[in-house]
């Protein structure tokens, strides 16, 4: 058992900063929600800070056409908030697909929908 602990200590010696997978914490519009007015942006708050060049977010309409403005960015004050602008959305169902690469290079994916009602 002592030797096992020693092995674990060897691992601890390599500790160089603890981060984790970036999971979606919440989004605006909310996951699965129905909203009555078009948002100007789709915002996703993650549980970890992201590396922007290796992260992405897309918004597509019901026909599968990408309708976001392809201007993904991180909030300057919050590296865990991924934003993309969208034009005025017509009533319909929209799918948000994201790829998040956390600062320790963990990669996660996700998809959710929201709807704009008349």
């Amino acid at each position, binding site marked *: 058992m002592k030797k096992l602990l020693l092995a674990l200590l060897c691992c601890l010696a390599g500790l160089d900063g603890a981060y*984790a997978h970036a999971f979606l914490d*919440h989004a605006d519009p909310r*996951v699965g929600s129905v909203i009555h007015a078009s948002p100007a942006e789709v915002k996703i708050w993650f549980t970890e800070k992201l590396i922007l060049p*290796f992260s992405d977010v897309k918004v597509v309409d019901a026909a599968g056409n990408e309708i976001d403005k392809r201007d993904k960015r991180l909030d300057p004050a919050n590296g865990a908030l991924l934003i993309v602008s969208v034009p005025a959305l017509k009533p319909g169902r929209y799918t948000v697909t994201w790829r998040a690469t956390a600062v320790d290079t963990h990669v996660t994916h996700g998809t959710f929908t929201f709807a704009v009602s008349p």
Partner: protein
Amino acid sequence: MKKFAVRGAIAAAALCGVIHPRAVMAHGFEGDRFFPPTIETDDPFAVDELSIPTVSLFHNPPDGGSTTREIDIGGEFDKELLPGWDLEFSDVFTLLHPKVGESTNGWQNFSLGSKLELIQNADHEFIFSIGCDWDIGGTGGRSIGANSFSTFTPTVFFGKGLGDLPDSVPMLKPFAITGEVGEDLPTEAANPNALEVGLALEYSLLYLEENVKDTGMPHPFRDMIPLVEFTMTNPQNRGGGPATGNIDPGVLYESRYFQLGAEAVIPMNRHTGPNVGFIVNVNIFFDDMWPKIFGHPLFGGGPNLAENNPGGSAK
């Protein structure tokens, strides 16, 4: 054997330390789905895992005798060597406290296993793997009943999330099932072969909140995965007796760096035993704690960070 294993672990840790990580992808992800490491059933992913400890408590009647309280304290270390291929080391320390007679304790046989991911489909949250476990005879204590012979268990594993169900049934999408089917092949001819089956039915509240519907559920509840596991051993020859197994309802809680799990262990028939037991487990996400050391194959592989296809396969 244990000294060899520990020295091997130290050497592996040292080797890992000199490998600079590329992209890090451990845990069991398939597409949008996070498959948690389940307690009783081995998951289908060949990734880095550190499961320590797993503590189970049973009251078992020995054959025709009085009740014995059994406490098992186990641990498992898995290391991905090449992309989709790992080596797995595990052992269990058993304490037996009979109602009548003296208590005893000791190690079960050391177990060495390997797993290979064969089929992955991110869009359908599906994975299929094969593996083999070697329960090394004679490495455990005879006093607690460890076998003097080895047993090989070739096994197939699978995992399937239901995220690809139609949007008309959104609340079913958080369901997932993982399973394993193996065959115990003892090296001593007098002992029976046995079919090993394990299934885990999960309902991921993480998946619900991230991918289906933000219900406003607060932490820590939205970080939980209720599940039911089913395990069965069915001897097939040489007078192996009837099938035994358990039905284990419980819950897993996912935190940033570890998973806590707790399940009741309900015997599936009277041959298994009359009493309900309990099992708790801590699974340390050491790929998150030490991302430069763990969470990627020892040699080669890893996803391409420049990949820019959200929703694509992670591996």
